[in-house]
C-alpha cells in the first residue's frame, strides 16, 4: 500500500470479503458468526493495520473501535501460534489512561480469545495480562516467566516497565502499540509523558505499528502527528480513519420557562424539576450532568424532596468527592439497569461501560462541543442507536451558548485541543529513566527526545539546562552528591545515573498527576469541610463563599489549610466551585461572537422579528421559546447599547452605586484567554495608577473596578501588545498563588520534591509548604531555573491561553477588530451576568436574580417595553 501524503485521510472502505481474505480463517469464522459485518471504522482500518501502517481511528463509543485494532493483531498472533512460532515475549502493548478501562479491555480480549479457543477446540496459547501499579509482586514474577503476548498497561506503568531490567528485555520486539482514549491524553502532560515513553520503547524494540483510538476530537491531523512522532526531523506517516459522526443525533435545547428574564426564582425552580421529572419518566434510564459537585447533590436532593414517592432507591449521585465504594456501587447498579436516574458532575463522561442509557440531560452548558458530544454519547451505546440529549438552560447566555454548541455538534464542528509542548518537568523524568537504564551520549538522547511530537522544536539550550539541573550543577561540587541524579561529562558528552537509590527513587516518584489536592477548611481548629485546591487561585481575603450550606469568610491559607470565619447571612461573592467550572472553549466563543454579529446585521437592516426568528430556527435548530429569548436578548443589547462581536470589541464604562466605577470589557474569548488579557491589563494599570486593582472575569468578558477616581484603563489597555504580553504576564504572575501552586506540581514532577522518600509519603500540604521554601531558594539561584520556567510556561500556556490572547491582540492592534467605547448608567443586558459574578449555580439564584431583574427593568424603561406586534 502506498500513499502520497504523509497524513492520509483513509477514505477507502474495504469489503467484508477483502478483509476476511487476509484474516486467519479461525478469526474470520468467529467474527462472521458473532457479528453481522464490519462496522465503518473496521472496514477502513483493519487492513491498514494488517499492512503495518500506523493508524488513528476516530469513532464514537460502540462503533467497534477496539476490535478494529485487535482483530488483525489477534489474527496474526493466532497464525503464529498455529505455526508453532509464537515466542515468549510481548508483541502488543495496549495503553489506556484508566485503570478500570484496562480491566474492561482484558474482559473484551479474554472473552473473544475464550470463544476462539472454543471454536478451535484447543488452547491457542495467546496470553493477555494487565500490569499497573496494582499488580502484585507474585503476578509480576509470573509475567517474567510467562510473558503476556498482549500487555495491558497505563502510561505511568509503561515508563516504569521501561526501566525494569528484566521485563524490559521482553519488549525488544514489540510489533504493535495501541493507545486508547488518545483524545484525553494528548491535551495534557500525561500525553506528553506517554509520547516520550513511546519513543523510548521504539528505541529498544525497533519500529512498531502505532494505533490510536479516539473519540471525536479536533484537529485530527495534529492528534495523528502526536501519535506517530517524527523520524530524522520529518513527520512519520499515519492513516486517519474519521468515523466521528456515524451516529444519529437527537439533540434539543430547552428552557423550563417561556421567558427566562421574566421568570421568578420560584418559577424557574419549579419549572426545572417539573421538566426533569417529565423527561425522566418518559425514559428508562436517564443520566444528568450538572458540572459541579454541589449542584449534583442539590438536584438529587430536590428530586427526592419534590417527588418523594418516585425517587427513592432508583436515584443516585456520582462525583469525585464521593467514596470509591459508593461510586462503584452506582456504576454497577447502572450497568444492571437498577437505576432510573443518575446525577453526576463530570465524573461519568469517560469510557467505562455503564450499561443502557436512553437519555442524557445537560444542566448548564458543557462549555465545549467535544464535551457535549462525549456526554450525550453516553446514551444509546450500540452503533445504530440514536444519541439522545437535552440541554436545559437557565439563563440567557447559557441559552445562546448551548444553542451554538448544538449547531456545531449537528454540523460536526469540534473545538480544537491544544497539545502542550516542550514541558521541561516531564522531560526530567524521562532523561532520568534513560540514564538509569544505561549510560549514553547526550546527543543521541536529544535526538530520541525530538522524535516526540511534543518536543520536536525543543531548543538545545533548554535540553541542556535540564541536563544541568539533573546533574546538580546549580550547587557547589561538594554539595552535588545530594542533588545530582545523573552525572554529565562535558568532555565526552556522556551521561549516566548517580546514586544507588536511583531506580527506587524513580519508581516511587514518577508520574504527572499531582497528589490529591484537597484543601482542608477550618474555623480555628475545627474542620468544616474540604475544597478543591484550585479554589485558592481566585479567592481574596474577605471573599464570602458557601460550603455545606453555610456561608464563610476567607481569611488566609497556609499550605493546604484554609482558615475561615462563619459569615451567616452574608451574600456570597465567590462560588466555592468556581474553579470546578470548565472554561468555554475558544473556538466556541468565536462562533458565538459570529452569531452576535449576524444578529446585529439583521437588526440593523431592519428585519422583522418574524424574519429574524426564522433565521434563528434554521441556523440554530432551536424551538420557538428559545428563538424568542435569544431574539429579545440581542435586541435589548442592540437598542440599549452595542452588540459586541468578533469584529467589534466593546468597552463599557459603567458608574455603579456609591461611586463604584466599572470598566467592562466585552471579550467573549473564553476564560483562559480572558485570564491572560485581564491580568496583563490590570498589571499595567496598577503600574500607572500605583494602586491595587480588582479584576473579575468570566468566559464572556472581564471587568475592572475601582472605588477611587478615574481609571486609566484605556492607557493600560493600549500598553498591552501582542509582542509584550508574555513579558508582562511573566511579571504579573510572580508571587501569585497560581504560580506557587503550579511550581509545586512541577517541582514534584521534576523530582525536586520527592513525595515518597526513604519509605515515607508526604502529604500535599507538606509538599506545598516545602515548595514555598524551594521557590525562594530557586529564585535566588536563577530566574531561568528550568523548573521555574516550566511552572511559568504551564500557567501561561496550559492554564491560561496566551497564544489566543496574542491572536486577539493582533487583531485589535491591526484594527481587524474595532474597539467601541460606551458609557452606561445602567449595565447593558450583556453586562448583567458579568457584574453579577458570572457563574450561576443552576439552583441558587436569589440575590442575583433580584439584581438582574431590577436592572433589566431599568433597561426596558429606557428602550421601551417590547411590543408583541412588531
Amino acid at each position, binding site marked *: 500500500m502506498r500513499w502520497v501524503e504523509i497524513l492520509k485521510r483513509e477514505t477507502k472502505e474495504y469489503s467484508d470479503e477483502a478483509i476476511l481474505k487476509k484474516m486467519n480463517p479461525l478469526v474470520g469464522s468467529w467474527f462472521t458468526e458473532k457479528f453481522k459485518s464490519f462496522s465503518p471504522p473496521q472496514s477502513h482500518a483493519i487492513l491498514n493495520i494488517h499492512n503495518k501502517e500506523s493508524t488513528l481511528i476516530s469513532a464514537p463509543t460502540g462503533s467497534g473501535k477496539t476490535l478494529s485494532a485487535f482483530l488483525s493483531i489477534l489474527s496474526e498472533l493466532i497464525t503464529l501460534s498455529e505455526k508453532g512460532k509464537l515466542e515468549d515475549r510481548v508483541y502488543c502493548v495496549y495503553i489506556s489512561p484508566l485503570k478500570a478501562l484496562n480491566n474492561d479491555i482484558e474482559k473484551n480480549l479474554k472473552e473473544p480469545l475464550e470463544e476462539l479457543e472454543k471454536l478451535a477446540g484447543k488452547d491457542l496459547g495467546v496470553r493477555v495480562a494487565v500490569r499497573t501499579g496494582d499488580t502484585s509482586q507474585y503476578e509480576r514474577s509470573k509475567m517474567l516467566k510467562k510473558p503476556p503476548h498482549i500487555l495491558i498497561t497505563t502510561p505511568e506503568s509503561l515508563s516504569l516497565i521501561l526501566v525494569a531490567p528484566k521485563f524490559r528485555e521482553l519488549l525488544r520486539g514489540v510489533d504493535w502499540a495501541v493507545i486508547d482514549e488518545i483524545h484525553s491524553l494528548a491535551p495534557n502532560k500525561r500525553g506528553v509523558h506517554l509520547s516520550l515513553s513511546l519513543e523510548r520503547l521504539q528505541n529498544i524494540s525497533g519500529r512498531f505499528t502505532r494505533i490510536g483510538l479516539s473519540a471525536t476530537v479536533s484537529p485530527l491531523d495534529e492528534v495523528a502527528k502526536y501519535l506517530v512522532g517524527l523520524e530524522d526531523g520529518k513527520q512519520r506517516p499515519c492513516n486517519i480513519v474519521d468515523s466521528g459522526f456515524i451516529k444519529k443525533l437527537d439533540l434539543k435545547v430547552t428552557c423550563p420557562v417561556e421567558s427566562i428574564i421574566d421568570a421568578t426564582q420560584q418559577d424557574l425552580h419549579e419549572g426545572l424539576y417539573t421538566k426533569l421529572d417529565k423527561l425522566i419518566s418518559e425514559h428508562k434510564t436517564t443520566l444528568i450532568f450538572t458540572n459541579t459537585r454541589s449542584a449534583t447533590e442539590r438536584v438529587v436532593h430536590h428530586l427526592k424532596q419534590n417527588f418523594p414517592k418516585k425517587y427513592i432507591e432508583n436515584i443516585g449521585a456520582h462525583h469525585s468527592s464521593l467514596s470509591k465504594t459508593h461510586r462503584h456501587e452506582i456504576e454497577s447498579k447502572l450497568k444492571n439497569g437498577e437505576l432510573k436516574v443518575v446525577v453526576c458532575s463530570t465524573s461519568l463522561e469517560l469510557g467505562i461501560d455503564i450499561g443502557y442509557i436512553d437519555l442524557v440531560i445537560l444542566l448548564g452548558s458543557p462549555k465545549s462541543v467535544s464535551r457535549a458530544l462525549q456526554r450525550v454519547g453516553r446514551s444509546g451505546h450500540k452503533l445504530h442507536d440514536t444519541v439522545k440529549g437535552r440541554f436545559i438552560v437557565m439563563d440567557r447566555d447559557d441559552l445562546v451558548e448551548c444553542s451554538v454548541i448544538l449547531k456545531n455538534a449537528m454540523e460536526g464542528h469540534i473545538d480544537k485541543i491544544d497539545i502542550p509542548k516542550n514541558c521541561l518537568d516531564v522531560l526530567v523524568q524521562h532523561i532520568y529513566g534513560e540514564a538509569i537504564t544505561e549510560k549514553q551520549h547526550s546527543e543521541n538522547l536529544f535526538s530520541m527526545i525530538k522524535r516526540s511530537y511534543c518536543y520536536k522544536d525543543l531548543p538545545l539550550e533548554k535540553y541542556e539546562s535540564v541536563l544541568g539541573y539533573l546533574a546538580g550543577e546549580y550547587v557547589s561540587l561538594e554539595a552535588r552528591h545530594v542533588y545530582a541524579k545523573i552525572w554529565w561529562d562535558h568532555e565526552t558528552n556522556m551521561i549516566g545515573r548517580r546514586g544507588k537509590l536511583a531506580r527506587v527513587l524513580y519508581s516511587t516518584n514518577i508520574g504527572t498527576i499531582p497528589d490529591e489536592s484537597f484543601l482542608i477548611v477550618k474555623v480555628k481548629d475545627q474542620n468544616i469541610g474540604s475544597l478543591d485546591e484550585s479554589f485558592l487561585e481566585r479567592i*481574596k481575603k474577605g471573599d464570602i463563599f458557601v460550603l455545606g450550606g453555610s456561608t464563610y469568610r476567607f481569611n*488566609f491559607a497556609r499550605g493546604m489549610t484554609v*482558615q475561615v470565619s462563619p459569615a451567616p447571612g452574608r451574600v456570597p461573592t465567590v462560588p466555592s466551585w468556581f474553579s470546578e467550572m470548565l472554561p468555554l472553549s475558544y473556538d466556541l466563543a468565536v462562533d458565538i461572537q459570529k452569531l452576535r454579529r449576524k444578529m446585529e446585521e439583521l437588526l440593523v437592516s431592519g428585519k422583522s422579528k418574524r424574519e429574524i426568528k426564522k433565521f434563528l430556527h434554521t441556523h440554530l435548530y432551536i424551538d420557538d421559546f428559545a428563538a424568542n429569548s435569544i431574539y429579545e436578548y440581542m435586541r435589548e443589547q442592540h437598542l440599549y447599547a452595542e452588540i459586541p462581536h468578533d469584529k467589534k470589541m466593546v468597552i463599557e464604562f459603567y458608574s455603579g452605586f456609591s461611586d463604584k466605577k466599572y470598566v467592562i470589557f466585552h471579550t467573549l474569548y473564553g476564560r483562559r484567554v480572558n485570564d491572560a488579557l485581564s491580568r496583563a491589563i490590570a498589571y499595567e494599570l496598577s503600574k500607572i495608577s500605583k494602586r491595587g486593582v480588582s479584576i473579575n472575569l468570566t468566559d464572556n468578558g472581564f471587568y475592572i473596578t475601582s472605588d477611587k477616581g478615574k481609571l486609566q484603563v484605556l492607557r493600560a489597555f493600549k500598553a498591552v501588545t501582542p509582542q509584550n504580553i508574555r513579558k508582562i504576564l511573566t511579571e504579573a504572575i510572580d508571587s501569585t498563588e497560581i504560580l506557587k501552586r503550579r511550581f509545586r506540581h512541577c517541582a514534584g514532577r521534576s523530582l525536586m*520534591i*520527592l513525595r515518597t*522518600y526513604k519509605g*515515607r509519603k508526604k502529604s500535599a500540604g507538606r509538599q506545598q509548604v516545602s515548595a514555598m*521554601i524551594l521557590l525562594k531558594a530557586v529564585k535566588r*539561584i536563577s530566574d531561568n531555573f528550568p523548573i521555574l520556567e516550566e511552572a511559568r510556561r504551564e500557567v501561561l500556556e496550559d492554564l491560561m491561553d496566551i497564544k489566543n490572547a496574542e491572536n486577539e491582540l493582533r487583531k485589535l492592534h491591526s484594527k481587524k477588530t474595532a474597539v467601541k467605547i460606551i458609557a452606561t448608567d445602567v449595565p447593558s443586558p450583556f453586562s448583567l451576568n458579568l457584574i453579577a459574578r458570572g457563574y450561576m449555580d443552576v439552583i441558587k439564584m436569589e440575590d442575583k436574580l433580584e439584581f438582574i431583574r431590577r436592572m433589566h427593568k431599568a433597561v426596558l424603561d429606557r428602550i421601551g417595553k417590547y411590543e408583541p406586534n412588531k
Partner: protein
Amino acid sequence: MNLTNDIEIKGLALYIPKHKAAIISDLQLGYEENLISQGVLVPFTQFEDTKERLSKDLNDLELDTIIVNGDLKHEFGRISRQEWKDVLRIIDFLSSFCKNLILVKGNHDIVLSSITKKKGVGVVDSFQLGDIFITHGHEIPEIPKGVKSIIIGHDHPAVKLRDGDVSETYKCYLKGKWKRKTLIVQPSSFLLTEGTDVLHYTLKSPFLEKGIENFEIFVVADKPFYFGKLKDLR
C-alpha cells in the same frame, strides 16, 4: 532606624552603640539538611547566604561584642555532621568581627555546649548590657532589677501582606511592652523562610501571652519600614 534611644535596627541585627554590641538571633543552621532528609531537595546555599547577609549587616559597625540570641542551630537533640561544620565556621566567622562572642541558649541548642567547648566560647541563659536584658524568649528567666528593655528572639516574627492574589511575606521587628518594660522581638537571621506571620498566627513566647495587638511593626526589607500598630494593620 532607632527602636529605642539605645537600640538601632541594622538589617537583621540590633546594634547598641553605647556598648559596641550587636545582637542576632535564630540562625537555625542545618535546616536545609533536615528538609533534604525529608525529600525536599532545596539547594545548599544557606551557609553562604547567611554569611553574606551577616557581613552586610555587621561590617560597618564598631563592635566589641556579638551576641547570638539562641537557636544558632536547628536540630533538637543530636547534632548532624553539617551542623557541626557550620557551627564551627560561623563561630570563626563571627569572631572575626568582634572581641567577644556570646551565645545565649535557645530551645534548639540543647547540645550546643559540646561544640562551643571546642572553641572556647561559653553558652549562657541570658545576657545583660546596662539596662538591656537579652534572652531567647522560650521561657521567662528571672529579670534583674533596673532592666528597662528586653530583647528576645524565638518567634521569628514576619508579616504577610496581600494585594488581591499577590502576597509577600517580610521579616519584621515587634516593639511593645512587658510589665512596663520595653520588649523587642527580633526576627530570625534564618534566610530560607521569612518567619511566622503575626497577622494570622499566635506567637509562642510566654512574654507575649497577653497578645501583641498594640505592638508596633517594623518591616525589614532593603531598609526598615515602620508599619504602625499590629491592630491597625488588620
